[in-house]
């Protein structure tokens, strides 16, 4: 499994990373330890990825939720980094960002949180953050610190692959950079995004912002097929999936589901146990839909 993970990783990484001297034992071990987390999340079973905003309502609460979500069946935990203007988010997640900002939670704090959590858990953790936060933090430093803290990947919703500019990862960095495909993306864009994305591909299930939807868009099956034409990387679907039935329907086509607003809504009401229960229910629904062949 570990060898498979390493090969998978090296195949998925950019050419630059591949050039890193593989004879260096240190790097090899490093790659394997880091990369296997996301790889395994998708190889054992279909992946459940809950999203919460880090520091909402406190860093301690977030830490506990990471452990509890893992125990309830989460395969990857996605942490939103608080930002004043989360453009792609609906009112529920916007409010979560505001709550975390009131506590002055910064990227640096979230790195410290992950570092701490890594003593207790190997659950893959990915960050979702606005490009402006990277602009200020520094892209190279971000990747270095992700690696140090044990963050497995980043998702930057307002940064399409063609805008990835200065400070490209220039070390033997193993942090995944996950890009998003939207229902409006055409074949040419899907191809570009799929090739740029590492770890997995984030499929936005529907046009619009994050938040609950009464009905799924019905575009997921078709979109997944389109992406599969260009890539065999795992595909996780997010935006608008809020209950077990929707997760079960979505997972028929995809390799993972991402659930945010429905969980964050419970956290807003301080119903942490309910949030964990929802994760467990989503797990059950996904497992019922059958394992990945």
């Amino acid at each position, binding site marked *: 499994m570990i060898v498979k993970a390493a090969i998978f990783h090296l195949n998925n990484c950019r050419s630059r990373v591949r050039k890193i001297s593989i004879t260096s034992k240190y790097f090899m071990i490093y790659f394997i330890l880091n990369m296997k987390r996301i790889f395994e999340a998708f190889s054992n079973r279909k992946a459940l990825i809950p999203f919460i905003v880090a520091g909402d309502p406190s860093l301690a609460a977030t830490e506990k939720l990471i452990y509890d979500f893992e125990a309830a069946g989460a395969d990857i935990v996605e942490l939103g980094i608080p*930002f*004043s*203007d989360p*453009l*792609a988010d*609906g*009112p529920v997640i*916007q409010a979560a960002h*505001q709550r975390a*900002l009131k506590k002055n939670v*910064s*990227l*640096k704090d979230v790195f410290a949180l992950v570092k701490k959590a890594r003593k207790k858990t190997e659950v893959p953790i990915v960050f979702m953050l*606005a*490009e*402006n*936060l990277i*602009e*200020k*933090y520094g892209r190279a430093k971000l990747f270095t610190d992700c690696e140090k803290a044990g963050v497995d990947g980043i998702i930057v*919703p*307002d*940064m*399409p692959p*063609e*805008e990835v*500019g*200065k400070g490209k990862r220039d070390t033997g960095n193993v942090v995944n950079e996950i*890009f*998003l*495909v*939207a*229902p*409006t*993306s*055409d074949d040419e*864009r899907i191809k570009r*995004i799929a090739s740029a994305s590492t770890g997995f591909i984030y499929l*936005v299930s529907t*046009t*619009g*912002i994050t938040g609950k939807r009464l009905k799924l868009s019905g575009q997921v099956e078709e979109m997944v097929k389109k992406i599969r034409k260009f890539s065999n990387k795992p595909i996780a679907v997010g935006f608008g999936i809020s209950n077990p039935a929707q997760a079960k329907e979505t997972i028929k086509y995809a390799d993972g589901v991402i659930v945010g607003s429905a969980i964050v809504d419970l956290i807003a009401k301080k119903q942490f146990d309910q949030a964990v229960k929802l994760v467990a229910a989503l797990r059950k629904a996904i497992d019922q839909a059958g394992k990945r062949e």
Partner: protein
Amino acid sequence: MFSDLPDKNGHFGEFGGRHVPETLVPVHEAVTEAYLKYKDDAGFRDELDYYLEHFIGRPTPLYFAENLTAHFNGAKIYLKREDLCHTGSHKLNNVIGQLLLAKRMGKKRVIAETGAGQHGVAAATGCARFGLECIVYMGEVDVKRQALNVYRMQLLGAKVVPVTSGSRTLKDAINEAMRDWMAHPDDTFYCLGSCVGAHPFPMMVRDFQSVIGKEAKAQHLESEGKEPDYLVACTGGGSNSIGLFNPFLDEPTVKIVGVEAEGAASLCKGTIGILHGARTYVLQTKTGQILNTHSISAGLDYSGVGPEHSYLKDMGRVQYVTANDKDALSGFKVLSEKEGIIPALESSHAIAHLKKLAPKLSKEQTIIVCLSGRGDKDVDEVRKLLK
């Protein structure tokens, strides 16, 4: 050459670009493609020129402000009278251009953001004229302080949506308009009111507003037989200023000044960041949280600025300075009293800078000031402040 910018991906040097969620990337690509197809199309140009002349009332005069010139006892001051445009500001120049494009793209639903309400009123006006559905996002705070403009938009048939997220001002209105566009990418056109946002908006808005500078250049040449020595314009998002500046950027003898509101001075006091789809100067904290701004003029009350201005600042082509609320009020008063023209509080920032600039210059030198809008909308506010 400054006139060659931006590049095909919308970059002005390191600024600009298209930093938007993937859902919106193809939507921006489609607008770019349509704009490039029609911008030099004879039919499109003719229709645009027709509306500029007969609906907006262009060309606007380049007015020699004799009394103001005497008052400052220095350079000759010319006012580019955008305040005389239909709806009372330069905003309609851009709106008509974008709506003619929206029509050609077959879009029936138009969304817009507004701060003070000038762009919202212009968008509502254009949509009424062309029979398009119009939804205007406006921060809840601005809805309250600009009640008259809200009613004007409603009279024109637009739906005004108060925005309750974030700081409830212009920045949040733009967020909300972009969110709306993400939800309605197929039938909706986002008529963005300033030279901000993702490519092609900074380029397209600049091009539509460049009619200001093109006219001013020809008018100045006719009255003075030379290029002006200085251009002065207020800069919030920066559409009136880039419109005036653009045709002069490659004239090295013309010195150019952009005046920001002191409480919203992205260029003078901000740092490089990414806001609303562009890399540009932004007022933000050290960790990258966008700051709220304060200005007496709602139209300048914005945490970012058009990316081309960021480039012009870094290249040293344009000098950006600030004027505070008090300076703006004195600009407001002096133009009203000396010339019988009540300027918008936004434009009053440009007028305010004349006090520093004009007396230092010789009587043979000339300054063109963009009088971007009229001040009727601000009379209530000024009355309260001057009490």
